[in-house]
């Protein structure tokens, strides 16, 4: 009886795993990489502003169709994340901020949106996104220069916020995107991993 029980258990495991591996799916992958795996053009751009900075973390991302690269660094007390295409051109720059660093008008508009959407809400992460205006789209050096010099006429600002919220109809974590005036332009639910192994 002892052995037949384990044979049955083994068959169950094997049948389950073969079904798992037999399926194809779109894979989203994000992993830390070495500096040597970054596109050369991206490294040239980084080196222009932060030469010899050794605490930059490099990340590779793919959803199966496209590939992106990301550099995360801390500069002047702020955390930056710079996203590049697979060729090494800048897509956008994100800066981790506190809500108190945003203008009162924008903050009021964001808080008003949150109050309308949730009965209770907690902001867990807020990033300021810098998106290049047309003229800088092909000139990454100018774009980053504008950001560091706070020359806000040459880029568009958005705010990406992660919240944990609860209303009568929904509960969970959400990613919200606001324009510079605080108007919500996107809302996505963050799918968290199952808790079955820690609950």
């Amino acid at each position, binding site marked *: *009886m*002892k052995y037949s*029980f384990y044979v049955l*258990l083994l068959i*169950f*495991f094997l049948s*389950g*795993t073969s079904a*798992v591996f037999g*399926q194809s*799916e779109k*894979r*989203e*992958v*994000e*992993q*830390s990489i070495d500096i040597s795996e970054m596109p050369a053009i991206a490294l040239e751009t980084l080196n222009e502003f932060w030469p010899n900075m050794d605490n930059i973390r490099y*990340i590779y991302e793919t959803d199966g169709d496209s590939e992106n690269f990301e550099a995360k660094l801390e500069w002047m007390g702020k955390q930056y994340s710079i996203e590049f295409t697979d060729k090494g051109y800048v897509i956008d720059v994100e800066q981790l901020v506190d809500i108190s660093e945003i203008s009162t008008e924008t903050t009021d508009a964001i808080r008003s949106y949150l109050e309308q959407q949730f009965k*209770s809400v*907690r902001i*867990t992460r807020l990033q300021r996104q810098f998106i290049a205006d047309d003229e800088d789209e092909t000139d990454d050096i100018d774009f980053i220069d504008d950001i560091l010099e706070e020359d806000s006429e040459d880029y568009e600002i958005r705010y990406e916020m992660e919240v*944990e*919220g*609860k209303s009568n109809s*929904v*509960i*969970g*974590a959400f990613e919200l995107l606001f324009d510079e005036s605080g108007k919500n332009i996107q809302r996505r639910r963050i799918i*968290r*991993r*199952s*808790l*079955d*192994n*820690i*609950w």
Partner: protein
Amino acid sequence: MKNFIFFAFILLCPLSVTAQSNLDWIWNPEISYSKKASDRTTLIAKLSVFNSLDNASNRRFVQFIEPQFSASYTLTARWKIGGGYYFRWAEPLIDGNRYEHRLLQQAGYINYLGDQRLAHRFRLEQRIRTSSYQNRFRYRISFDFPLQGERLDPGEKYLIFKNEMMTAFNATESDAENRVSAGLGWFIRGSYKFEFNMQYRTQDIFSGEGVSHLLLFGTAFYISR
């Protein structure tokens, strides 16, 4: 690489106690199926088996078989409460086997730092055995994090560490136990993961008859829908 060295160190630490005479070696295969019944409610069915490696050649090999059924309800984005029923069939290959019915109530609080999770679980249990009854309170802290990058993607591995303290209390018996474990998990894809863990238990702390030790190798397959 540093993570693997750290993991190996944690795994090997309990081996230092193998010289002690009262150490039991256990292999604990588990399979868990969980399903979200609604936005807030999750149902979990699990089968857990305890095998004594010291008795691999006799009928006491299977120490117990335990089907478990539980449900959880999400109170907030971080707090959950739940309850369940476990049935333990002890030494099923031996004549005169024994049973245990177990009721449990629990609450959990989860902290997120990106895809790193720190979970606290508080559990009350009522153990109704063939010949006795026991109340037990358990507190467990768990921490898991991806090994590659900031987010756990399909095909990637993660590490998980847990420590659980528990105390039994009622009129006729009281005791305490500690369980520390380290595990390596593989997130196969969205609904499937597999974990290997090593757990070291310090048991019978207040029994007055000497502390006993248990070394448990766990293999767990999780399906979540």
